[in-house]
């Protein structure tokens, strides 16, 4: 009886059903990989020499040296932390009006377009590149870093805030509007209660990102722990570098747990 049924079965292709397209794509991917790997030009001798240094770095990570460069590390940390806090506060303060302006359901079209383009510019420029320019303009040090992070915060918070406002429950806004409330009263009674918890959450999240970024922009001269890290790596002091990286990881972990705790507490 079972002889009447087919004895083979192959899983039919799920995503790309056209056979030629599928084979074409597979060949394309293969060709790309060959070309990409082919253009690598690895100096294996240099790499094998580096293995010893890599080992030293891993040792440095496992036995970090916090003490011998502690003055530099602590100064870098203080710069990073202060820069993180000030840039987040200023960034959030600026991004609230811009975020409101970038919400389609609240403002006239010209204001919307202006605010959205500010957001787009801030988001498309990478922090490190912004930092390079600001360092060139304002000189080395944490002030340029502060400006960079503030600039990046504006794009981040304003966009998410605006998207959030656009998604609010229209019925609540409608109800407040129908009482004859002014635009500011509308903001205060209908919008603020709906988006405030999220704004606080976003600000805490951005605080965390800003700290991580502060470690990066130091490499191009914008102060903070990144500058200290850069120096220690340049000097091949892997034990100090390991110490700095561990501190960064620890602070990020604390910030993550802290902010999730704080968010729960505030809601």
């Amino acid at each position, binding site marked *: *009886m*079972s*002889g009447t*049924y*087919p*004895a*083979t*079965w*192959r*899983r*039919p292709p*799920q995503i790309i059903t056209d056979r030629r397209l599928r084979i074409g794509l597979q060949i394309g991917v293969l060709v790309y990989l060959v070309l990409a790997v082919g253009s690598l030009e690895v100096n294996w001798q240099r790499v094998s020499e580096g293995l010893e240094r890599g080992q030293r770095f891993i040792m440095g990570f496992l036995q970090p040296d916090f003490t011998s460069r502690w003055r530099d590390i602590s100064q870098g940390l203080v710069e990073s932390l202060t820069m993180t806090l000030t840039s987040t506060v200023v960034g959030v303060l600026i991004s609230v009006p811009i975020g409101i302006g970038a919400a389609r359901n609240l403002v006239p079209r010209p204001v919307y377009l202006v605010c959205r383009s500010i957001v787009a510019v801030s988001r498309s420029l990478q922090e490190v590149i912004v930092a390079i320019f600001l360092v060139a303009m304002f000189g080395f040090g944490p002030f340029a870093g502060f400006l960079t992070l503030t600039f990046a915060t504006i794009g981040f918070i304003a966009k998410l805030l605006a998207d959030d406002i656009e998604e609010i429950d229209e019925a609540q806004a409608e109800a407040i509007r129908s009482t004859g409330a002014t635009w500011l009263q509308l903001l205060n009674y209908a919008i603020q209660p709906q988006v405030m918890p999220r704004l606080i959450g976003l600000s805490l999240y951005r605080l965390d990102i800003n700290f991580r970024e502060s470690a990066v922009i130091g490499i191009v001269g914008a102060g903070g722990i990144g500058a200290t890290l850069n120096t220690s790596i340049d000097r091949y002091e892997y034990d100090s570098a390991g110490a700095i990286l561990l501190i960064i990881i620890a602070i990020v972990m604390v910030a993550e747990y802290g902010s999730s705790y704080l968010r729960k507490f505030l809601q």
Partner: protein
Amino acid sequence: MLELISLSKTYRTGDAALSDVSLQVPKGQIVGLIGPSGAGKSTLIRCINRLVEPSTGKIELGGVDLVTLGRRDLRKQRRRIGMIFQEYALVERLTVMENVLSGRLGYVPFWRSYLRRFDASDIQRAYQLLDRVGLLDHADKRADALSGGQRQRVGIARALAQDPDLLLVDEPTASLDPKTSRQIMRLLTEICTERDLPAIVNIHDVPLARQFMQRIVGLRAGQIVFDDAPTALTEDALTRIYGAEDWDAMRKGDIDQAEAENDAIRQLAEVGA
């Protein structure tokens, strides 16, 4: 034959889901398990293939005690026990054929199953089972493209692909409409009769149980309070299982409801006229 000997299960929270349950299911018998929610029906079924670990007691299937088995032996015994789930529990993103073939997973080595290279006999059997449940044309469809009744039939085919000695069926019709429910129950009972396969069926729908089961076991608060033929399931027995519900009042409530609806329709018709 399946035999449960003073089976008990106490969850870590301290809830005693089953206490001292003993039951024998001979070959070819279809047993309906009824009882209020929380009576331990689902726990009972899951204890048999040890998706839930029983606390004490014995479960013997064809002379093998399932409770004391190690992991590897347990997997071997699980192959003999087909299970059919309440919400089908098909792997939604796999094809119907893969879902049926997954019933063979306990029999084939990993690399063959990974590459989907099943034996010819397995594939023929899978097709045969799909034909039996009326889904031969749907073999290459993805499981999430099927209707509820069709999915449950794939679930049945998957369980049968294991070539089981026992079927565990957990609320097979809970997510189906009344007509499809009857079709599924009929299919299940037919298949069990064809293969002389014993089955334990959790079922919350008492009329359905009466219609299709050969024997009914009533569970209440983890204990068997009724075990007899469906004809013996009187209102007294139902009260013993489900508690002192006022069945007459409920029925009267239904009549009230129907009358109210009729009344409303009549009034609407008058307004319209």
